[in-house]
């Protein structure tokens, strides 16, 4: 069964450093998403991406965040200057082009720890 692959599974970084979280969406999917889940809290939407541009973004997704699809397979989330409160699980998701873009298939996540 096709799956969304995220790397690394766990990343530790120092406060103020830049991090790039990587995702390989399912190959025929056209909509891409990033969500995050702070420990013990809800899964929160960050951003959606379609046709090489951001479709929607939440208030969390400020100027410190950016997304990119640098080639035909990868989808990345960059955090320019990490803060302690950026520590969370970050989930990438992708969904198909048939109009059922609601659901999305999630990856297993990257646990980001900012120290």
């Amino acid at each position: 069964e096709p799956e969304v692959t995220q790397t690394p599974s766990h990343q530790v970084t120092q406060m103020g450093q830049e991090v790039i979280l990587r995702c390989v969406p399912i190959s025929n999917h056209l909509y891409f998403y990033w969500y995050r889940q702070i420990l013990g809290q809800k899964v929160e939407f960050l951003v959606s991406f379609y046709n090489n541009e951001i479709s929607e973004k939440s208030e969390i997704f400020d100027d410190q965040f950016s997304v990119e699809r640098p080639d035909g397979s990868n989808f990345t989330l960059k955090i320019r200057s990490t803060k302690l409160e950026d520590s969370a699980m970050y989930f990438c998701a992708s969904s198909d082009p048939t109009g059922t873009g609601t659901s999305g298939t999630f990856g297993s996540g990257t646990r980001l720890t900012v120290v």
Partner: protein
Amino acid sequence: QKEVEQDPGPLSVPEGAIVSLNCTYSNSAFQYFMWYRQYSRKGPELLMYTYSSGNKEDGRFTAQVDKSSKYISLFIRDSQPSDSATYLCATAISSGSARQLTFGSGTQLTVLP
């Protein structure tokens, strides 16, 4: 206001029991309703997806949506220990393109053998 409320549990039931999981939401613009299952340290996995009001059944799982009361439910029949996980409800507004999901906080379910 985009908000989804879900009883966090934990909920513990014996094997074979019928499980009822529920969420309420406040935004009447929500049109799509999903249930996800999440195992520890894993991403959410879509279980059920419903558009607008009504029931949907898939094996042992039944999803119900009552838009008049803004209430969504997931029923699990003949629950198994392998059903032990956190169950997340999620909603989305029909925006015509990539849809932003709003999640509940999740209910932790344990099915005891």
